[in-house]
């Protein structure tokens, strides 16, 4: 199954032989006090840096979250989406828990966006899916309802429900990307094994594409990038087809591209080798100017 997301001029495919889709997570004020203050002042200039760094890091899609409770998130989203689209031709993932902000973002977006996100709760499904359908977007479905099930089978059931209700709203399964819920392994030793089992179950039973907040896994731990790289590789081998992740973390992005190659999604390593050449060229260019 293939999920496509589009900007004006670029189409990104998730799943079915396509390279793993790296969704850059950086445009998000969580844990960024300075960025929060800028958002409260209506200042979006930080996005120029965030976009450039993630594009350079190798992101395929960029997540846009400008949620701050002391800022006007709806107006910020309305302004941020065209601004980011002016800075890059990567497709975007519109990220908010506020319905009006999702609508504002989708209204301002040119192309087919990914919406982050809906849960399996009836109230959220009924609020968000009509908007997704109206804009012809794709949507991320979190495999939890009012609680996070700690059994993979129950997460599968929530995922199944989301795909089914999305269908009722005219959203086909290929436009539903399930998040099997990556949780901090530092707080729950079984977090990742549960996750992997859930990924496998969803792949075998629903066949839909999957993404996750990969950075959650390493929360509160040292060596986050090394943990992230290992988590991504092992998840990819179980059937994960995308991740919302730190596209500025070279270790993580390289792990994903290496795993693409190892799992036969980068025939003859053409992209792996091209990336190597691009890196050499960039180094040479930098040496020449310094």
């Amino acid at each position, binding site marked *: 199954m293939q999920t496509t997301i589009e900007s004006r001029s670029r189409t990104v495919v998730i799943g079915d032989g396509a390279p793993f889709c790296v969704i850059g997570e950086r445009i998000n004020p*969580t*844990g960024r006090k300075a960025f929060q203050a800028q958002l409260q002042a209506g200042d979006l200039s930080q996005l120029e840096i965030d976009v450039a760094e993630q594009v350079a890091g190798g992101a395929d899609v960029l997540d846009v979250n400008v949620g701050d409770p002391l800022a006007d998130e709806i107006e910020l989203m309305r302004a941020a989406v065209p601004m980011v689209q002016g800075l890059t031709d990567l497709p975007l993932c519109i990220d908010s828990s506020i319905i009006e902000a999702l609508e504002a973002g989708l209204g301002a977006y040119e192309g087919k966006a990914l919406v982050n996100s809906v849960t399996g709760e009836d109230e959220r499904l009924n609020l968000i899916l009509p908007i997704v359908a109206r804009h012809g977007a794709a949507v991320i479905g979190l495999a939890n309802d*009012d609680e*996070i099930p700690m059994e993979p089978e129950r997460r599968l059931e929530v995922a199944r429900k989301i795909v089914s209700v999305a269908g009722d709203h005219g959203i086909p399964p290929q436009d539903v990307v399930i998040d099997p819920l990556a949780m901090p392994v*530092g*707080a729950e030793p079984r977090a990742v094994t549960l996750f992997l089992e859930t990924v496998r179950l969803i792949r075998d039973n629903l066949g839909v594409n999957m993404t996750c907040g990969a950075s959650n896994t390493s*929360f509160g*731990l*040292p060596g986050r990038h090394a943990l992230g790289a290992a988590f991504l590789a092992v998840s990819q081998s179980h059937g994960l087809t995308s991740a919302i992740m730190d596209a500025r973390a070279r270790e993580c992005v390289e792990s994903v591209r290496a795993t693409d190659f190892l799992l036969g999604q980068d025939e003859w390593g053409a992209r792996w080798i091209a990336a190597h050449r691009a890196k050499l060229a960039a180094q040479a260019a930098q040496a020449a100017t310094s």
Partner: protein
Amino acid sequence: MTTDEILQGLFDNTLIGNAPAVKDLTNEGLAMGMDPETLLYDALIPSLEEVGARFERGDFFVPEMLIAARAMQGALDILRPLLAETGAKPIGTFVMGTVKGDVHDIGKNLVNIMLEGAGFTVYDLGVNVAPEKFVEQVQEHEPDIVGFSAFLTTTMPMFKANINALEKSGLRDRVIVMVGGAPVTQEYADAVGADGYAADASTAVRLAKALIENRRSAAAPA
């Protein structure tokens, strides 16, 4: 083993999260006739405070904090009934939960353990708690304090929704509201009309005690 060795052993083993040793030492101390309060206040709480300080400094990581808290929890399970027997009244009652739309609970759980260690009775409502649920539980338990936790900038607005729900049910004046979580600031706590905000678990406990004391002395007849 001397009483000092028991206290030192409790401190050291809580620090490294050795739950079986903490449980054994607690039982051993009690068998030697040591006071439950001594074990709690001279070893367990100082140890967990040290864990918190190391975490703040970046010397300790989340799993170390959690296993230390779990080790202390094991000791508390033994000590709680004894502390109740000695007639030590709970310092206060706390209803606690992560707000609706948010499922992060690591910080909240740590605050709960610190509160219990300090002598509070804590009713933990878990994660993704709707305003109606907070109202219902405040009605049922009549706590001194209700605590709202949020980890995401996008779920912080639920503080206000919860406070509004308490107001609508006529409960707002009967309970102290504390808020916390990674993105929360004093400024935001003030903006939503909370009574207290703390940046970490130890501060939360100190503030909770102070807020209860203020309220009780304000309520006492002059």
